[in-house]
């Protein structure tokens, strides 16, 4: 796990005008797709705007961005398309927002999923993080609103967090553009395979459920050897998620 968080980054290539170009809504011919997921009220849209140079409205409201917003940036001659998913608490329920977010991560297969969390409410936000990590291997945790966390005397051991979650962690204060260059660098490293993630998988599951999940995911893997998230699909099948059942029947999941 490589997780360098370099706070003194004036010499980094991302400050180099040639290295980084914010492309606004120009999303054609991209090399990588990056999804932004996160709880409502974590400053997700602010991060999106900071990355793309766009000015999408960000209300202080749970569940503001309902439609998917898209933007792009270019870094070292590679083009990244950014998709801002609706803010959700979870991917397990059935609301429209959650379906949009979940379907994009599952079927859209983004090259990197950036999960934005509110640093001062980490525990609540980890609910979504842990669920996303069940679906996808390539993720970056953006620990946003560090300024508020500091004001509230909350200290976070980013290294330990990165180790526990198995993905790189980048602290930011997107409102003040702090940490954005580091975030961009980390995204590009994950996209290019320079950082390999070993994402956390849910541990605290009762034994009978664990057994059922193992049995089912073994069957799924036998049928679809390339599937990256058989365990998560097993979870969904046990919940009776008709959309996943249909996708499985149509062969859309591998």
């Amino acid at each position, binding site marked *: 796990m490589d997780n360098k968080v370099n706070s003194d980054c004036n010499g980094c290539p991302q400050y180099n005008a040639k290295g980084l170009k914010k492309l606004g809504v120009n999303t054609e011919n991209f090399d990588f797709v990056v999804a932004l997921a996160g709880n409502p009220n974590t400053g997700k849209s602010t991060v999106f705007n900071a990355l793309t140079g766009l000015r999408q*409205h960000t209300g*202080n409201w749970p569940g503001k961005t309902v439609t998917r917003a898209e933007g792009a940036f270019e870094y070292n001659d590679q083009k990244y398309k950014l998709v801002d998913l609706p803010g959700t608490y979870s991917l397990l329920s059935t609301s429209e927002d959650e379906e949009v977010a979940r379907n994009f991560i599952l079927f859209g297969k983004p090259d990197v999923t950036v999960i934005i969390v509110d640093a001062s409410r980490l525990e609540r936000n980890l*609910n979504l993080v842990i669920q996303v990590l069940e679906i996808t291997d390539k993720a970056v945790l953006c620990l946003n609103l560090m300024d508020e966390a500091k004001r509230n005397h909350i*200290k976070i051991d980013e290294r330990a967090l990165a180790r526990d979650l198995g993905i790189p962690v980048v602290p930011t204060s997107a409102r003040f553009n702090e940490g954005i260059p580091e975030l961009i660098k980390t995204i590009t490293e994950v996209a290019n395979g320079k950082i390999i993630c070993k994402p956390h998988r849910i*541990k605290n599951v*009762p034994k009978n459920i664990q057994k059922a999940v193992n049995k089912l995911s073994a069957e799924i893997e036998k049928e679809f050897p390339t599937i990256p998230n058989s365990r998560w699909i097993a979870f969904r099948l046990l919940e009776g998620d008709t959309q996943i059942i249909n996708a499985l*029947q149509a062969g859309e999941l591998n």
Partner: protein
Amino acid sequence: MKKNSVENIIALSNDLRWKIGDDFHDHLAEGIYADASEIVKNTVQTDDKKQQFRLDSKIDNIVTSKIWGFPIMFLILGLILWITIIGANYPSSMLANLFLDNIHPILKGFAANIGMPWWLDGFLIDGVYLAVAWVIAVMLPPMAIFFPLFTLLEDFGYLPRVAFNLDYLFKKSGAHGKQALTMSMGFGCNAAGVVATRIIDSPRERLIAIITNNFSLCNGRWPTQILIASIFIGAVVPSSLSGFASVSAVIGIAILGIFFMFFSSWALSKTILKGEVSTFNLELPPYRPPRFWKTVYTSIIDRTLIVLWRAIIFAAPAGAAIWLISNITIGGESIAALVINSLDGFGFLLGLNGVILLAYIVAIPANEIVIPTILMLTVLVTGISGGEGAGVMFELDSANETANILKAGGWTLLTAINVMLFSLLHNPCSTTIYTIYKETKSLKWTIIASILPLIMGFVVTFLVAQIWRLIF
């Protein structure tokens, strides 16, 4: 072969579900949070002594307090409406002056110079251009004031507290506290109010908020109310009180709208919407200082211009239609006159007249052009002098002259009251209807949202007219 094994997997999952029982989701959620709290224990240190959010809770204790909660809320929302209505006056008349009194003659002159045929000139400049100009002049200034103010409150985080304060009242009528905000937004523009219902995540309550948003008197309708009230309501009381009387009448109409909103929310939740899923939760996010200029910029781009653009798209063909019906004649009578004649009987039953009904039909795209259309049509059918010719909408600077034209069209105090009521209770403008369709993706709900207020308008004006005629 493959198909079979997929079916086997699904059959296995069904079998396992039966074994692990109903609590699967609960256990999974508990498991995830248990993981989360383990991770947090390892990585997060909080200083309990200097605990958190002190300023937040101080603000919260005031804005949700028993004594101050409601007064502060009404003060802030009232202030925003007041600033909008007063503040929009000046730029609106400036824009009207520019578009209608300056650019319009120039365009006409230009058309005459290049020898444009009269019908093309009339169709484009008197029809399409005038309608679009009118909509921009009346709509842009109030929205450009209202939306940024509202958005500032939203970004600060105050609006969820309003929902929190008012939820109990909305719950009684089967709605969600957040509807207080979509309703307030509706006072600016119903289409924006409908978009704002996205903040309500419960399907039933969101549909209620969408369908009843039209009962908020929007910016496009305030000027109509104010004009009619000052001409007719102000005239029945001694002149020293006329200002007060007409203002109270307009506020009364707005409050009546809120009453109808509550009533129909309750009725909808008990009847056609009772099968929709209903949930409630409301997060009170921490306060965050809004960044003023950025908010102003984005709210103008995101809300004002998008809504304005939609309105223009709908207003242009409406202008064309208004010009055409006034200028195409069948058997010596214009289409407008024919339609007005056939609507007169029904109009009379409602205490209105054919002109008003036709104006509301052609003005579906934009409530802003109702008064200019009524004036033009009244001149057209009564044949009195005034106005600018068939199909050319106009407004007069003096309320007296407007009153004279309307009275020549047969208006009484009853007509005025019913026009005010009908302006509150009629179908949403086409921009709003289109927005409702986009938000609900359902023809059924769009039709209900469009028809319901219209039926209520018919019933209310009908009853008022009959009772009025019985008494007086």
